């Protein structure tokens, strides 16, 4: 069923997500992530994934972009944000509008 939240990440931080009630899965490389995703996409509505892992398997994530579920969301790890998530929003804006109008105001 589609009503769970999953978190894929490294050992150190998935415990924190487990404590607030998510299903957690440990993964260290792109291969593990893609096989996990295949399994989880049938049962989870939201899958959070750490930014560094998301970066490694971008092509796999691209496949899930057009379906309404699951939503795969990159999150920063304990080391802080790498800017990958923001990059994703930027890419979406560029894709839709053709030019980046949200971000260039600041820099």
């Amino acid at each position, binding site marked *: 069923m589609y*009503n769970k939240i999953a978190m894929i990440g490294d050992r150190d*931080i998935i*415990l924190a997500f487990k404590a607030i*009630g998510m299903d957690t899965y440990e993964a260290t490389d792109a291969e593990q992530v893609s096989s996990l995703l295949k399994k989880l996409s049938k049962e989870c509505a*939201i899958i*959070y994934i750490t930014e560094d892992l998301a970066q490694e398997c971008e092509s796999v994530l691209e496949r899930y972009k*057009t379906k309404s579920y699951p939503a795969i969301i990159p*999150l920063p790890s*304990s080391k802080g944000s790498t800017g990958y998530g*923001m990059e994703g929003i930027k890419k979406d804006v560029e894709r839709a509008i053709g030019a980046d109008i949200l971000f260039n105001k600041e820099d």
Partner: protein
Amino acid sequence: MAVGRLKVNPTRMELKRLKGRLKTATRGHKLLKDKSDEMIRRFVEYAKENKRLRAEVEEELAAALQSFVLAKAVSDEATIQEALAMPSKSVELELSTTNVMSVLVPKIEIKESNSRESYPYAFSEVTAQLDSSIMTMSGLLEKLIRLAEVEKTCNMLAVEIEKNRRRVNALEYVMIPQIEETIKFITMKLEENERGNIVRLMKVKSMLADKQ
């Protein structure tokens, strides 16, 4: 831009058919363009919210995780594992889809179940630092889910806008010019035939007049 004309016979019937197609294409083009405009307007709203939410979540989450990792370092691994192995609450979601310009986007609501208490362990076992990091994490849950919803909506809208733009462009720069050119070609051809016919009739008439 030379687009070339369609390969059709220059007949009146074909002309009528093409005129009908041109009308449909122009109307479709206008509708799709309006749809595109509205989708972009909505998209910008979502994208702004997405950006704001993500900035907030990233900042708070990084802080919470940092304190979590620190708390983990202070106590020993086994204690923490034991303390958090059985979460006291499981999050359940209420899912549905909403229609944003005929794109079905997810709508996610939390249906928090059996939350007896937010800490799954006894306070004597672990440090206060862990307590505070877990507390922040629990507070963040709602934002995290909202972020998932908004970000997914953004993704889907972006893809749809791209598709729609391709359709609009195909109509504007290929279909419509092509049909217009073919219509012009057929009209010219028909006029040419008409002129040829008139000349022939005049010739016949003068030949008949000569005979008499």
